[in-house]
């Protein structure tokens, strides 16, 4: 299995993303620079990491979503390839149109950096097969703009299609319907504000995020 971690100027969870990917999925996972116009051949999973790409200028994720590598990421997603966007990566996915909605300022305007509880809403996805539906997991958040918004029709469609994958138990940021993570229509693109890659080792005090990577492993290694 081949994992590519995209690096934008201002990404700061790229190292964590690469470490988690190497630990759980692909010992040879590699970085791909944002100005590249292609992904390494055979890429199975694109990981868009957290951070402040392009200094969050204009809107968080807006400039990164229009960088050269994103054309290749879109083509990869259109082919059915897996894409995981965490935190700023989620913002990049909504800005690029790969996921619906947008992420706006947390309602209390604070940058929130702490562990939160999430409910895994469905185990019937490539990203959550190793969990059970309804399971509560603890995953860290670290964001100032994680307040998920979409028009009512879009939210209803996400809910109706079972594409709300993770929900906050105690909503920290004002997200509609306590949404923490959503899936694309085809189920191959996941965006989430919490950081599963920061919770993959007992050494770091939390392994609750590991299930997400184990789920992908189950799907990708056949």
């Amino acid at each position, binding site marked *: 299995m081949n994992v590519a971690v995209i690096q934008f100027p201002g990404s700061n969870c790229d190292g964590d993303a690469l470490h988690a990917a190497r630990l759980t999925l692909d010992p040879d996972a590699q970085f791909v620079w944002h100005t590249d116009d292609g992904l390494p051949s055979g890429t199975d999973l694109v990981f868009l990491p957290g951070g402040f790409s392009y200094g969050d200028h204009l*809107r968080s994720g807006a400039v990164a979503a*229009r960088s050269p590598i994103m054309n290749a990421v879109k083509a990869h997603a259109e082919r059915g390839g897996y894409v995981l966007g965490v935190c700023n990566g989620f913002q990049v996915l909504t800005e690029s149109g790969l996921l*619906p909605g*947008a992420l706006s*300022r947390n309602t*209390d305007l604070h940058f929130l950096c702490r562990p939160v509880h999430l409910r895994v809403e469905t185990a019937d996805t490539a990203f959550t097969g190793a969990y059970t539906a309804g399971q509560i997991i603890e995953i860290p958040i670290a964001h100032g703009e994680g307040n998920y918004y979409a*028009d009512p029709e879009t939210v209803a469609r996400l809910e109706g299609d079972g594409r709300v994958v993770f929900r906050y138990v105690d909503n920290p940021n*004002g997200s509609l319907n306590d949404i923490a993570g959503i899936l694309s229509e085809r189920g191959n693109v996941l965006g989430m504000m919490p950081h599963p890659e920061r919770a993959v080792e007992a050494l770091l005090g939390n392994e609750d995020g590991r299930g997400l990577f184990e789920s992908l492993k189950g799907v990708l290694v056949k």
Partner: protein
Amino acid sequence: MSPEPTNTHQATVFQAKVFVTLKPSILDPQGRTVERALAHLGQQASGVRVGKLIELQLEGERGEVETRLQDMAVNVLSNPVMEDVRWELEEAPVQGVAQAVAGA
């Protein structure tokens, strides 16, 4: 070979102002904070919303510049999911700018 006339379609420099505001349906926590701060100062104001002004200069013929500006405003400078956008386009006061620079 006689030289082509070069000034029949002379490009004009335009000054554009793009105003980006959160849609009315979107909660603006920043505006609410400003509103409360104003109230603390004894300045009563309601409906405070914080938006963005983006200024840019564009060169070309008016019709073509308007098309480009609309494309930029709608597809890059604003996010239609949560923001409204409008813009103004005026011929840039080139003379004035030159004088200002000269006088600086």
